[in-house]
């Protein structure tokens, strides 16, 4: 099969590659250097969660409240709404009122959703 795809200039992305390499390099270098020159004296006290004042009990794996999830859910829905604003904003000037009305309907729908969530009381933090 002689189908070729990807006529795309990687050298334009050389900056990204250099950024990645230098970023990784700095982290590895500083951690490696610190490991070489620091004194090593592990004691169990150093592994405690708080230095003083609090004695931790139980594990860190508690069940979180479902309210966190509902806020995350609202974020996801409006995040997906926001992705449609980018291409819309680019063509808004050339399409004029038509695009404005379309986006108005689009956002109005989701405002109904937000209003529903508000009325249901899921936005209230008790």
């Amino acid at each position, binding site marked *: *099969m*002689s*189908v*070729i*795809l*990807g*006529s*795309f*200039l*990687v*050298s334009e*992305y050389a900056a990204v590659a250099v950024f990645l390499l230098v970023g990784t390099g700095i982290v590895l270098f500083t951690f490696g250097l610190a490991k070489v020159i620091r004194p090593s004296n592990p004691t169990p006290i150093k592994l405690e969660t708080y230095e003083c004042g609090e004695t931790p009990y139980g*594990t860190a*794996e508690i*069940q*979180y409240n*479902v309210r*966190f*999830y*509902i806020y*995350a*859910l*609202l*974020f*996801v*829905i409006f*995040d*997906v*709404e*926001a*992705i*449609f604003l*980018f*291409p*819309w*904003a*680019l*063509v808004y000037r*050339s*399409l004029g009122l*038509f*695009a404005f009305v*379309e986006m108005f*309907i*689009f*956002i109005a*729908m*989701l405002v*109904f*959703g*937000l209003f*529903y*969530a508000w009325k*249901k009381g*899921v936005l209230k933090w008790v």
Partner: protein
Amino acid sequence: MTDAFLTNLAFYVISFCVIAGGIFVVSSRNLFHSAVFLVFTLFSVAGIFVMLSAYLLAAIQVLVYVGAVAMLMIFGVMLTTQLSNVRIRYMNEQVWPALLICAGFLALLVYGLTDTPFATGNVAAPVEGAKAIGTLLMTKYVLPFEMVSVLLLAALVGAIVIAKKD
């Protein structure tokens, strides 16, 4: 180091990241690690999107999948699982039959892939990106665009009704 060589290198490195990340998502015993590797895999897929000069979609992949969906997954993990509970099994007893079926399925796909005569010739010029998408979305595909808002409204209301404690 020619540009063609660098393109190949970038593609195969990113592909390796995608496949390795996918394998970890499926095989990891810790659900939280699965979620983190899902982020890694989806981010690498965004890299492939950039190689296919779909820049807007690569950005949206990062925004929606990595930023929102994977975060939602992590919230789900935090809400429902006991990570250190070793009695929970993450895989069932059908691992080998599943792998066998999947290998057969993959072989079928590869056979179809090598057997299909894709139209040869020059690749079309890269599409001009976000502006073309915006114009299409606002004119030709305006009905799907408005349906999307209805779908999101339904998902929002439905998810709140299901998840709300009462």
